[in-house]
């Protein structure tokens, strides 16, 4: 029973760190229509910045500033927001799938950097001894996991409330207006590029924060955690939950992470130990198939209640589209 409680808290905590990334992606894709395929790279930036700021002094890589965890989280969000802003400033004017290719490239480049700049990032060995919140409770596993869960839940809740507020604010309405009918928004004097860039950087900052929370939850990071598979998982989460919908982003993270964890234990019990690596690839096949199936049969996701988005998803934007609705309904 205690084990189950402990495992449940652990499972939910991991799912909530994904929910944070998914909320960040919802700002970029769900609200603004920016196709970011470099999620893994931005999450990595956040994780590394926070790790370097908070770990004790080390000899094999830069850092060891020993700052408090909260400073690491804040630094991660600011730094990743800045990196995302730079990437966006270069690429935000591109056609949607060129932006996808460019962000995919950015993630590859970031991965290469953390792998090869060994004096800064520890290279392939990663960074260990990342301080964990509530370390004082470490000898009482249940209290420790529950405290962590409560902290992450509070972060997700605060983000959710803030993002809901933003989506309903004039700023959020401008984003949707630009996404729905750019010429009309331009005619009203809104700079599409500037608003897109703001949304892109904000989403990136949230992804960086998510990276930091993951790093401090697990206590160890390495370049291999930030492969394209992470990007795919988060996309699956947002699409399953319903993009353009903050509750959908959180629900999708819980559902997809649940399927992932269940399938992991299923393949673990079905395959012998020496076949585990193989079985893991079967799990990825499943996520890929699920993503395709959802796009085919339920492109709006479980909570696809954002009417504006579904119209956008189902048909390509045309200059003859009706005037943008700017009512808040996310």
């Amino acid at each position, binding site marked *: 029973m205690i084990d189950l409680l402990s495992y449940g808290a652990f499972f939910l905590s991991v799912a909530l760190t994904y929910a944070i990334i998914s909320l960040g992606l919802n700002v970029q894709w769900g609200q603004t229509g920016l196709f970011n395929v470099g999620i893994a790279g931005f999450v990595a930036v956040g994780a590394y910045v926070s790790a370097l700021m908070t770990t004790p002094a080390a000899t094999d890589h830069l850092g060891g500033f020993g700052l408090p965890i909260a400073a690491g989280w804040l630094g991660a969000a600011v730094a990743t927001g800045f990196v995302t802003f730079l990437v966006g400033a270069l690429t935000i004017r591109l056609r949607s799938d060129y932006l996808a290719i*460019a962000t*995919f490239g950015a993630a590859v480049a970031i991965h290469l950097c953390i792998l090869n700049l060994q004096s800064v990032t520890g290279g392939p060995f990663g960074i260990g001894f990342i301080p964990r919140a509530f370390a004082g409770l470490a000898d009482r596993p249940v209290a420790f996991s529950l405290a962590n869960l409560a902290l992450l839940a509070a972060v997700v809740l605060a983000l959710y409330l803030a993002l809901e507020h933003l989506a309903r604010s004039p700023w959020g309405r401008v984003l949707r207006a630009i996404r729905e009918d750019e010429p009309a928004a331009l005619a009203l004097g809104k700079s599409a590029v500037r608003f897109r860039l703001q949304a892109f950087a904000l989403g990136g900052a949230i992804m960086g924060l998510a990276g930091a929370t993951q790093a401090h939850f697990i206590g160890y990071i390495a370049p291999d955690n930030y492969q394209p598979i992470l990007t795919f998982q988060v996309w699956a989460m947002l*699409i399953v939950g319903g993009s353009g919908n903050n509750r959908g982003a959180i629900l999708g993270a819980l559902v997809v992470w649940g399927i992932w964890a269940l399938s992991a234990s299923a393949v673990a019990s079905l395959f012998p130990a020496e076949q585990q690596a193989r079985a893991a690839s079967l*799990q*990825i096949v499943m996520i890929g198939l699920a993503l395709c199936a959802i*796009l085919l049969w339920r492109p709006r996701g479980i909570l696809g209640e954002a009417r504006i988005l579904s119209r956008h998803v189902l048909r390509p934007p045309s200059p003859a589209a009706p005037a943008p609705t700017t009512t808040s309904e996310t």
Partner: protein
Amino acid sequence: MTPQVVMDGLVAGAMIGLGAIGITLTYSILRFSNFAHGEFLSWGAYLVLALASGLGFLAGGPGSPLGPFSFGWTLPVALVAGIVLTAGLALVVDALLFGPLRHRGSAVIILVMASFGAALTLRSLLEFVFTSKPVYFTDALQIARPLGFGLRATPDQMLALGLATVLVVAIHLLMTRTAIGRSMRAVSENRQLAGIAGIDVRMVIRTVWIFGAGLACVAGVMSGLLVQIRPQMGLDLLLPLFAAAILGGIGSVPGAMIAGLIVGLAEAMTVQLIGAEWRAAVAFVILVAILLLRPRGLFGRPE
């Protein structure tokens, strides 16, 4: 920097160019960036590997090496069958996934995302079947022969370059001189109008997949012959492929090939000047530069 960089770059660039032709054709006619194209390269390589070993098993051995090359008769035979199978795979993916989305009038971005899902599935399936351990077509060791000007190349590399040249010329002639080529260009200009004018758009789309996947299979086999075969090879080549397709100008077959050679040369120079670990960054730098400076590429028409 030694002159050998040129040879290495050209050989790597020929593979990138062949793969990029598929991307450029899909993009100009189906109007989306196919992230699953790299997977056609890896599937082509593995299909040919399986066929070649199957043939070798039936014939009691892979046969003695053909002339100066490192492989026996099973590989060319398997390559022909592999091209057919890879094209078939692309047609199946289109029929199951892209076709229904297209008929529904889905946004470009949904197609791109679906191609992601397809890439993930196809790549992991390869990893499941063949594991992630690298494999080779042959374990024969080839000696590079001097070609003059300080350049050296193995017979396999020369063959790959020659084959790539022949294929690009053939596809270019096909696009510019035949009825199906004219239909393809018409559909890429305006699909509705082409349909009204009596062009069988579905046939054109099938042709695009067959050409793109067939060339990808050849590129994958070349890469397998000259380097190695891994399930990740398509993913690793994806960025160079996109860089070449965009640099060459979307829709241009010769452009994709020339841009492929440029990307290959740039990668080879980076390996020499900066270090092999930064090779993968080259394609990204070229990509961003070309998107910023000349988004329609070297040979592209304005959109």
